């Protein structure tokens, strides 16, 4: 069943939702990266909750005008307007009062959401239009998704991606060093506003599929996941888009493969699984890689300290050091150095001297910065450079017996 779903063979609606969710995931992941780099991820939570009053008011207006209250485009426009007002309130509060941004987010989020819930309750008691289904915007509801809904999502996502492609460099500059960007004459406030506008667009487009409560997950989890895999902002953007798209697609497939699985929450859970995998397994920044590096580092430290102790004829007391040296065949069971051990020890001592010279010389700065007391000097300097240093030190000093 899941296999069929993954191959888009569960019928028209599931296919439509899968395409929509994938596009939404990509757009949200890419947009969210800039929010994450700017350290304003939670602003998206305020924006998304601020959409709710707009949904309610748009419904009421459309019904009063004698139309169909559930027109998706109309509801989305309403939600965008109220999210925009929420964003302006947030900006005003942080700029003109002494409130910190987190407090302002809390205030805007709860007030707008509360007002939105009141409107939805009023609408339900008004018995006008076909009001059923407006709650779907809270957590998303894909059951009755129409072709036109998918088109709205696709166009919205494409526009967002196009704008981000244009604005990516200024947005990265502002995220890294806003004051420098301002000194260069970049319109920092407008760039920030544009970024928030894009977040708003993604939020509004995502209301139908994941709903306003969980859209924040699609904006934040993919960039955080991507950050584990790379040290470069451009790649965080791309990987984050891929993670978001994958989560959207797989999430829809899973929810379509069994009855009564909610699409939006499943998408969020899938993106969490991708996050957890990255947290544990990513090379470089993942927890497992960090642990392995730590253990290997510890081994190297003990090895090097042991070798230097051997070279200088000092006794070794630490059992871990002895165990490591013994396993490498550098000392005998009684703690006396083997021939191989003596050779390695002499080299270790000599390398210490070479490092000392290299580190004192500004010409070797880039190499010297890699000094950690462990690294073999030939991995950072050429043979010629080492020969130079050796000349500086003087002739080879005999291997101590």
């Amino acid at each position, binding site marked *: 069943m899941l296999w069929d779903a993954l191959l888009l063979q569960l019928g028209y609606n599931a296919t439509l939702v899968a395409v929509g969710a994938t596009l939404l995931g990509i757009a949200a992941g890419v947009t969210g990266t800039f929010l994450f*780099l700017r*350290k304003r991820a939670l602003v998206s939570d305020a924006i998304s909750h601020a959409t709710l009053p707009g949904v309610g008011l748009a419904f009421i207006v459309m019904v009063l005008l004698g139309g169909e209250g559930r027109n998706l485009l109309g509801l989305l426009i309403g939600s965008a307007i109220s999210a925009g007002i929420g964003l302006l309130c947030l900006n005003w509060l942080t700029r003109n009062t002494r409130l910190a941004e987190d407090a302002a987010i809390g205030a805007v989020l709860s007030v707008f959401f509360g007002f939105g819930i009141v409107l939805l309750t009023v609408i339900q008691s008004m018995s006008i239009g076909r009001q059923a289904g407006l709650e779907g915007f809270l957590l998303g509801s894909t059951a009755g998704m129409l072709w036109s809904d998918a088109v709205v999502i696709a166009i919205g996502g494409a526009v967002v991606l196009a704008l981000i492609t*244009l*604005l990516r*460099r*200024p947005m*990265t*500059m502002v*995220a*890294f*060093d806003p*004051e*420098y*960007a*301002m*000194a*260069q*004459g*970049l319109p920092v406030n407008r760039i920030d506003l544009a970024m928030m506008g894009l977040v708003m667009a993604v939020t509004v487009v995502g209301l139908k599929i994941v709903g306003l409560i969980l859209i924040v997950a699609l904006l934040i989890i993919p960039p955080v996941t991507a*950050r584990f895999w*790379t*040290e*470069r*902002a451009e*790649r*965080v953007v791309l990987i984050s888009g891929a993670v978001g798209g994958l989560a959207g697609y797989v999430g829809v497939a899973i929810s379509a493969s069994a009855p009564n699985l909610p699409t939006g929450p499943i998408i969020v859970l899938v993106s969490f699984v991708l996050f957890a995998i990255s947290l544990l397994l990513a090379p470089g920044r993942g927890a497992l890689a960090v642990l392995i590096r730590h253990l290997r580092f510890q081994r190297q430290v003990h090895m090097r300290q042991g070798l230097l102790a051997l070279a200088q004829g000092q006794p070794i007391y630490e059992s871990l050091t002895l165990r490591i040296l013994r396993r490498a065949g550098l000392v005998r069971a009684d703690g006396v150095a083997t021939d191989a051990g003596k050779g390695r020890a002499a080299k270790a001592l000599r390398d210490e001297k070479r490092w000392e010279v290299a580190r004192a010389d*500004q010409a070797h*700065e*880039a190499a010297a*910065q890699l000094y950690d007391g462990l690294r073999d000097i030939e991995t950072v300097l050429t043979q010629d450079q080492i020969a130079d240093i050796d000349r500086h030190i003087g002739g080879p000093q005999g291997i101590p017996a």
Partner: protein
Amino acid sequence: MLELATEQGKPLTEMDLADSPLAIRGLTVSYGEKPAVFSVDMTVQPGSMTAIIGPNGAGKSTLLKAALGVIKPLSGQVQVFGRPLDEQRAQIAYVPQRASVDWEFPTRVIDVVVMGLYRDVGLMGRLRKQHISRAQACLARVGMEDFADRQIGQLSGGQQQRVFLARALAQNAAIYLLDEPFAGVDAATEKAIISVLQSLRAEGKTVVAVHHDLATVAEYFDNVFLINTRKIAEGTVADAFTAETLQATYGGRLATAQVDQLALALG
């Protein structure tokens, strides 16, 4: 250059405003209702190196940021070569305090330097090979060419500072404003930075730096600007960097013995 050299000796008030790379008039900046900088005039000499000196919280960084348009002043004007700042942004390069950014940001050294080329590349323009090689040359100038591909989080404090200087050099501006470029850097970096700044001056460019170490002022700089919310003194090191002006700037915070020692060192 000869002309400039004679001009440096003249009293500052005689300078024609239009000739000054950076002229500030009546600048007041306030956070809340306490002015950090009050009614300050400053006239920077072309082709000189000026140290902005004053105690902590005296408004040194604020003055610099207002001169760059990063902070909006309550009142006052900033003119760059006699024209409003907004028309002359390309002429000013900024080296902010090292601690002002998050060095865990996912980016490489070369990417940071390329940010200095933003005016050439354009808001949405394409990055070309020539841009990269220009950024490389700027890194080489601060002795960091081997670090281009390193992640910025791996750099030491002194190296971070030099990357920021390279980013400013990439702008190829006429004026360089530096906020405590020597704070928390090692001696090797301090030497590297000062020699770059001196070579900029030799090219006829103007350098203004917030500076903390009173002992090196006379060695590094031509002019000083003493500030403690209000301007205390401005002029050549010989004229304006005296025991009296320092006492007026630092008040009781500088021990008399310290002041005397400095004055003695200055002759």
